[in-house]
Structures are given as C-alpha cells and as structure tokens.
C-alpha cells in the first residue's frame, strides 16, 4: 500500500502509479492511461491522455521528470491533470481546451532515476541504465535525443552527469517517447517539457545559436506564457532560445521535437532561482503549480487558435 497521494506533497513513484489509476477510474470520459514502454528496471512508462478522447483533435504533449532530482516537475504534471479534470465544465478556458484538444501527459519520464532519487540519492539526475565498459551508471535522457547528437564535446563520458548515451535514442525511455510522439505527430501541435530550476521559459534552438524560422512566433507565445504566469504571484520568468539564455546543448528533447515538425516546443525551468534549487519546499508546490498552470493554459489557448 503506497500511502496517500497529495498534490501539496512530493509523491514517490508507487503513489504516482496508483494516482494514474485513480484518475482514470474517476474520469473515464476524460482520462485514459497509455503504456508507452518500459524502463531498464522494468517500470512502466505511462502517458495520461486528458481530453474528450478524440484522436483527431489537436494535442499538446507534456512531459515531466526527465531529470530525476527535479521533483517539482512531476508534481506539476500531477497538478495539471487534477486541475484539468476538476475545472472542466467550470472554467471557460479549460473547458474549451479539453473539448477541442487532447493533452498527453507523461508524469514521470525518468522513472528509474526518480525512484533512485527517492530511495538512494536525492541528487540523482540521469536514468539507471548500465554503460558498457564503465562502472558509472546512467544517461542524461535530455542529451539522448537525435538533435545534433554528439556534435559538442564533453558529453561522452559515462561518468558525467550529462552523459549522452551510446547513440541517439539508445535509452528505452527516450525510444518509448519518440515512438509515441512520431505515431501521434499529425495531432501534436505543441511539446512542453518541465524542469527545475531558474525560472525560465526556453524554446529552440539549443544546439545552435541560429534562430528558428518561427522565432518571432515562439517569442510571442513565450511572452504570453510568462506574462500569464506572473499574474498570480508576480513570479518573474525570462524567456529566449535555449542556446542564448543558457548555453549550447545537444541531444535535447526540445530541439528534437521541433526538428521533427512540432513548431511550438517549450521547456519550463520552474521555481526557484537557487535559494532552494532542487529542494523546493513542499509548501511552494501549490503556488508554483498554480502559476505554471496559467502559463500552460494560455500557451495551449494560443496553439488551439493559431497552430495549423
């Protein structure tokens, strides 16, 4: 018995699995669970489809918890599903979104790493796959995508926290996600990934300082999102392409999704700016999720109206 799930607390993997079942059973017309694959340690990868269950609609793919220690990220995905189901029929924007769009929500991408961060090492980042000819464990899943993979030095040491794996999509988790997205590419109009920390909203590219062809549009959406986010608690986020606002990064899911054809891809770096870093207290989960929810709603609203 995994214990009681709470949106105001961090939940371990067992609680999250039970929660996915509960959401599905409680809202069968709105939530369904899709198993998209398994991890190295044989844990299931679940995507929750949230919406009025029409495959032909526009959709948004969201994932949380690529990096194990960024606990606020899975907390947000759970919050999103809860709020979406709760506010359907009550909140005008959310009702419209769920009537006309589907949200595919992967609440924990790096399941094995997340479990490890709960049980053995709170500071763990990568997944838990074994690396050939190395005693070091794990690949950084957000360096494992086929987006200019291996074009920058310093990511090919298995002992590094940003090790990119033996090949693009070498990891089971990455493969499961890319297969799912490819098979739903006709409907997916936006890809949003959630990280922590530093309060930023990033968009492509990360692997080059060149701007995307729709840079102006992405910047406009990012402004809408960050402006909306700030309205709740005046939390200020900055936004810009990943390469310019942070640093050049190869193999990221953000760039991969963009190059695949999803022209609205974003990465949130949630609270805070470093006071707590990866250890954001539970007492800040609710406010962080509330403001982020607003940003995501406004981004989705824009996508619904403008993405073809």
């Amino acid at each position, binding site marked *: 018995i995994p214990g009681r799930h*709470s949106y105001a607390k961090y939940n371990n993997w067992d609680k999250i699995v039970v929660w996915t079942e509960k959401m599905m059973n409680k809202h069968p017309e709105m939530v369904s669970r899709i198993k998209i694959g398994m991890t190295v340690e044989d844990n299931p990868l679940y995507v929750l489809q949230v919406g009025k269950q029409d495959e032909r609609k526009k959709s948004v793919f969201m994932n949380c918890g690529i990096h194990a220690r960024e606990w606020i990220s899975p907390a947000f995905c759970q919050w999103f599903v809860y709020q979406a189901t709760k506010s359907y029929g009550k909140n005008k924007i959310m009702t419209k979104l769920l009537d006309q769009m589907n949200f595919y929500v992967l609440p924990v991408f790096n399941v094995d790493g997340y479990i490890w961060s709960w049980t053995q090492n709170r*500071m763990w980042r990568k997944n838990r796959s074994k690396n050939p000819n190395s005693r070091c464990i794990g690949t950084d899943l957000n360096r494992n995508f086929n987006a200019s993979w291996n074009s920058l030095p310093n990511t090919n040491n298995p002992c590094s926290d940003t090790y990119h794996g033996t090949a693009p999509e070498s990891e089971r988790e990455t493969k499961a996600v890319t297969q799912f997205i490819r098979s739903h590419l006709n409907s997916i109009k936006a890809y949003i990934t959630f990280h922590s920390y530093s309060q930023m909203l990033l968009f492509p590219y990360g692997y080059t300082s060149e701007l995307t062809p729709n840079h102006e549009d992405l910047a406009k959406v990012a402004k809408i999102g960050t402006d909306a986010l700030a309205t709740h608690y005046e939390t200020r986020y900055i936004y810009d392409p990943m390469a310019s606002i942070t640093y050049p990064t190869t193999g990221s899911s953000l760039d991969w999704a963009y190059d695949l054809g999803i022209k609205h891809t974003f990465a949130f770096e949630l609270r805070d700016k470093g006071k707590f870093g990866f*250890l954001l207290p539970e007492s800040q989960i609710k406010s962080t999720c509330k403001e982020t929810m607003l940003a995501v709603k406004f981004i989705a609203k824009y996508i619904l109206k403008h993405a073809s």
Partner: protein
Amino acid sequence: IAPLRFDREKVFRVKPQDEKQANIIKDLAKTKELDFWYPDATHHVTANKMVDFRVSENNSQSIQSALEQNQMHYEILIHDLQKEIEKQFDVKEA
C-alpha cells in the same frame, strides 16, 4: 543499501568576472568533485554567468579558500544540504 546522506555539504554560487575566473572553477572541477546545479556541466561555465555547484563537506573549505585566494565573489546558498533535504518536506500529511 542506506540512502546517501549529504550532511554539511554546501551549495556555492559564484559569478566569474572573466574567463580567467571561469577557468579557475573548471580547474577546481578537475580535482574536486563538484556537482553542477546550474549550469549542468563544467564546460558550460563561462564569464559573467552565474554558477551554482554542490561540494562535499571535505572539499568545501578548500573550495572556499581557492575562491578567496583568487578574489572571487561567492555566496553559500546552502550550508547543510541534508538539512535542506529534510526541510523540503514541510507539509504535513493531511
């Protein structure tokens, strides 16, 4: 296996003023184990960009001394990581 503990481990924040200072951090990372929180790896450390990293209790004094010797401004964001880990669970079960 007992979970890893982080007693008295520290998180430093440094903003290198130039490439020379950025290289000092990179050099420190070659000899001491630094866990980069932001940016996420040594090679991203550059001038005028803030760096947050975690160090073990054993290394924190020597890191602090190295920063001071090189007249680098720093801030200690977290003095005892283990305490912060415990403090993050600040909401009681309903």
